[in-house]
């Protein structure tokens, strides 16, 4: 199947990617989770916040062990754990993708401007990056979502506005390298404007590393959302998130006696992040033949 122009940069990268077994596994895992997120209502007969009653119908079926009706049992409020994991995929993927979209847009613009124009602009922007990078990510995220009332969108913006620094540094470095190359000098020589040089000559050449950065950023955003929700300052109940499903496991009774409550959500988080990393590593190796 020929998707890209034969023997072009992307065609060669595509062929290298398809030969990389781990990369294919990673892509498959990631797509599987996207599929789950999209089709969650079809995949389970229950709702994410639906309560179930015990056999005699008088009390909620709290902490019911896995059974035919509830494959992964029920949680502290008598909700189906598997259903919440499937719906949790929606939250996780929505948060991670949106946050990375924000951080990529900010990071790319800052990096392009700093790298291309240099001088004082570069100095100021890079010092701002230094300030943001000095704060341990989680501290900053926790501070932000504590001050503002935690919600899904606050988590998205918090992660997006904290994580753009890596992309900015990466893009700046690439721009510094590319703008010295002959084809950029040539474009400048024939009178192209800065806007045209950036859009036509620089952006197409930084796409590959930015794509790799996007995958790595997505994996990290998934972990951050899970950590924030676990600490109680991220996605809030009753919205299911893989992170907030593990809060209950801090009680030693749940940790000791009810592994179905906390092992499945932790495992799916691990799987999704691992899949995205495999994909990202595959992309990097495909784009960079030296590796």
């Amino acid at each position, binding site marked *: 199947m020929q998707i890209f122009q034969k023997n072009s940069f992307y065609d060669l990268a595509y062929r290298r990617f398809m030969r990389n077994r781990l990369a294919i596994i990673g892509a498959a895992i990631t797509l599987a989770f996207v599929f789950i997120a999209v089709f969650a209502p079809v995949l389970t007969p229950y709702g994410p916040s639906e309560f179930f009653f015990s056999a005699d119908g008088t009390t909620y079926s709290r902490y019911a062990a896995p059974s035919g009706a509830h494959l992964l049992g029920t949680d502290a409020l008598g909700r189906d754990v598997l259903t919440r994991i499937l719906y949790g995929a929606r939250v996780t993927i929505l948060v991670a993708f949106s946050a990375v979209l924000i951080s990529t847009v900010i990071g790319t613009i800052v990096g392009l401007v700093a790298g291309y124009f240099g001088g004082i602009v570069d100095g100021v922007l890079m010092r701002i990056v*230094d300030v943001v990078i000095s*704060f341990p990510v989680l501290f900053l995220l926790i501070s932000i979502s*504590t001050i503002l009332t935690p919600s899904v969108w606050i988590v998205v913006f918090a992660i997006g506005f904290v994580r753009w620094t890596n992309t900015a540094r990466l893009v700046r470095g690439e721009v510094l390298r590319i703008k010295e190359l002959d084809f950029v000098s040539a474009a400048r020589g024939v009178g192209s404007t800065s806007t045209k040089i950036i859009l036509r000559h620089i952006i197409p050449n930084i796409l590959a590393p930015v794509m790799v950065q996007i995958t790595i950023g997505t994996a990290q955003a998934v972990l951050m959302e899970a950590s924030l929700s*676990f600490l109680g300052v991220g996605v809030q109940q009753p919205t299911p998130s893989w992170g907030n499903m593990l809060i209950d496991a801090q009680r030693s009774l749940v940790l000791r006696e009810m592994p179905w409550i906390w092992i499945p959500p*932790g495992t799916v988080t*691990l799987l999704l*992040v691992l899949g995205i990393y495999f994909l990202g590593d595959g992309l990097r190796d495909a784009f960079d033949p030296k590796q």
Partner: protein
Amino acid sequence: MTRYVIKRLVQSIPVIFGITVLSFAIMKLAPGDPLANFVNPTISMEDLEASRSALGLNDPWYVQYTRWLSEVVRGNLGYTYAGNHSIRMLIGQRLPNTIILTLSAFILSFAVGVPIGVMGAVRKNTRTDYGLTIFSLVGVSVPSFFFGLLMIYLFSILLGIFPPGGMVNIRARYVGFARIMDIAHHLVLPAIVLSLSNIATVSRFTRSNMVDVLKEDYIRTARAKGLRNKAIVYKHAFRNALIPVITIFGLSIPFLFSGAYITESIFNWPGMGSLGIQAIQDREYGIVMALNLITATLVLMGNLTADILYAVADPRIRH
């Protein structure tokens, strides 16, 4: 060299300034009136307004910022809303515990990560290498809180080898050497949990550096001279591959401090992270801000030290 050090120091001045502004802004943006916790409910609006003025809460933000900054540089980090405890004292009690934990994790990251990376590079594209690569990827992918809970489940609940939390055995009241051993016993699980992801980062970085160095001309020369493989790997390649690993020193610091938040709260380790979590639950913004300020400054100093060490180790970087 001196010029490079001076240049880096000068560059960090605006960054330090930015750190204080951002820390202050976060606290100022926090909702809620600091007076709300102190006053009795029958106070009149006029009296409330008078005490707000007296405390300087009606001044413009830059006046408040300057006043706050001048206290901070003198070491006064303010007081908690509840109980009026000195924040500096609170943090002073917790900081050593966090340093014990992060330093152990730091040492563990390099002591385990570097050999794994070297092994992967030397046996590049073998089964060992693939196994180690997958291990590293799993290491950076596993959510630390999940890994922590798994470790408690395995080693405390099922096997009963290590305590599930805390820093000392409160009932035993050990002193002297027995106390140190007791702390070490409590330290094992949190240190492993905190370092796992960093071990993975260090090993991946070491591996890719080592792979690059092993392709260098001087390695080929060494092989041509007929040197034994061991001598080439450990004397020629290893030393050069290790230099860029210094940059990970600096990067590890914010990473470990972030991780300490989660690790400490899972293991009830009495450090700054669990203090921070508690502060968030109690809405003690003063503590949150002080922790932000202190860790950001530590991180900046760590990065500065790493950059200078790097420049000492590799003269090419100074230009």
